[in-house]
């Protein structure tokens, strides 16, 4: 390497370091496919008691390059999994000889608006259901098929397909009535300082969003974009996997994806995003 190349390389390194570390455009607006206008900042719901001045999509905290990937479905690597799930939708599986399509026809019609209100109360089962729980219930009781792993590739892809039918609609989960106790449990968890580092979700995502913790630019930890495609592991990631990692990083004994605790936490965290658009599959680093 000659001297000029070396110094040019050094300069590039300095510049790209600057870009990666700091430049996130928190004032950007998100329009997907020049068509779907996403609400990436919204008034904070009253039940947050003024803890947040406004609610912000995690998309705002990512670098310009990562933000761009979500502006067009041709650039969004998460859309491949949506296509795969659409094939899966029509595939017969299980003892009843049925596919999702047998009962739900075209997801564009049957699943529009569904993602926006989950987790929600299922009166027959008498439980709060996440989208993943509902999908598995249909597989098991309607199709006679095997349940998918809670955060498996099949599951996150199907969740993404269902979510896409609600893109741009405001998240609107119910927090009262039969889900009230579960919501309270989730809220309690959100403010609990777990692990040897004694950190709560709120320490990082409520008190310090916008700040860097080492190289990470902290967002509000919203889940309106889930499942998210991460450049880090090149696949769709379920919200419960994110929760699991965040609790583990406090040097705590974490909870299992699909556990009652994480279902409660999901309901509460989802409600903190009531008013933001459903964005899934969104793109993160």
């Amino acid at each position, binding site marked *: 390497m000659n001297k000029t190349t070396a110094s040019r390389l050094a300069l590039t390194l300095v510049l790209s370091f600057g870009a990666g570390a700091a430049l996130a455009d928190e004032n950007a607006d998100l329009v997907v496919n020049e068509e779907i206008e996403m609400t990436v900042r919204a008034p904070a719901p009253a039940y947050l008691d003024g803890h947040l001045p406004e609610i912000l999509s995690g998309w705002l905290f990512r670098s310009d390059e990562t933000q761009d990937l979500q502006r067009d479905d041709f650039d969004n690597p998460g859309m491949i999994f949506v296509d795969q799930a659409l094939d899966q939708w029509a595939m017969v599986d299980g003892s009843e000889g049925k596919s999702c399509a047998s009962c739900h026809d075209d997801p564009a019609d049957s699943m529009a608006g569904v993602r926006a209100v989950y987790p929600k109360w299922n009166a027959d089962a008498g439980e709060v259901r996440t989208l993943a729980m509902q999908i598995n219930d249909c597989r098991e009781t309607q199709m006679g098929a095997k349940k998918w792993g809670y955060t498996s590739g099949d599951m996150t892809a199907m969740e993404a397909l269902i979510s896409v039918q609600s893109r741009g609609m405001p998240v609107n989960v119910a927090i009262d009535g039969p889900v009230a106790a579960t919501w309270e449990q989730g809220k309690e968890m959100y403010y609990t300082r777990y692990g*040897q580092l004694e950190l709560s979700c709120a320490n990082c995502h409520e008190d310090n969003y916008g700040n*860097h*913790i080492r190289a990470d630019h902290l967002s509000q930890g919203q889940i309106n974009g889930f499942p998210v495609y991460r450049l880090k592991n090149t696949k769709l990631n379920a919200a419960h996997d994110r929760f699991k990692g965040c*609790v583990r990083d*406090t*040097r705590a004994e974490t909870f299992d994806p699909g556990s009652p605790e994480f279902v409660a936490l999901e309901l509460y965290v989802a409600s903190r995003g009531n008013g933001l658009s459903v964005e899934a599959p969104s793109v993160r680093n």
Partner: protein
Amino acid sequence: MRITAITLGITALAAGAALADPVEPMSVKYDDYGAIETSLSGMPGDAVEGKKVMSSRGLGNCVACHEVSALADVPFQGEIGPSLDGAGDRWNEAELRGIVADAKKTYDGTMMPSFYKTSGYIRPGNAFTGKAGTEPLPPLLTAQQIEDVVAFLLTLKD
């Protein structure tokens, strides 16, 4: 000559004994303001070592939350806590020792982790495995590492 050598030998022995017998995390005496008067390891700190402890992810990782101009070569310094520049002017040795060992005794409810504490946690884990840990957990830093960090912090003067 002979006498000097023997004296040196004894000093080293005494030091070795102190090293082997640090104040246990449960027995540390904090004053009303959260300060700790005497060395936790019985030994003086080494500022060069302290610098390493503060910068490395596997140890103190203090730069995850603090900016320190004297550690300018360490990339990605955080913005959660205040800059530590001038910490050696703002605090004396005993106060810094207290802050590093258990900052919650100085700042009620602070987000800063307690580096010399072993029990009283909610769902304590086995390091970063996500699995359960058994209390008492090993403290995040050893007594000597705390002393080393304090020695480095004392060099941070405006």
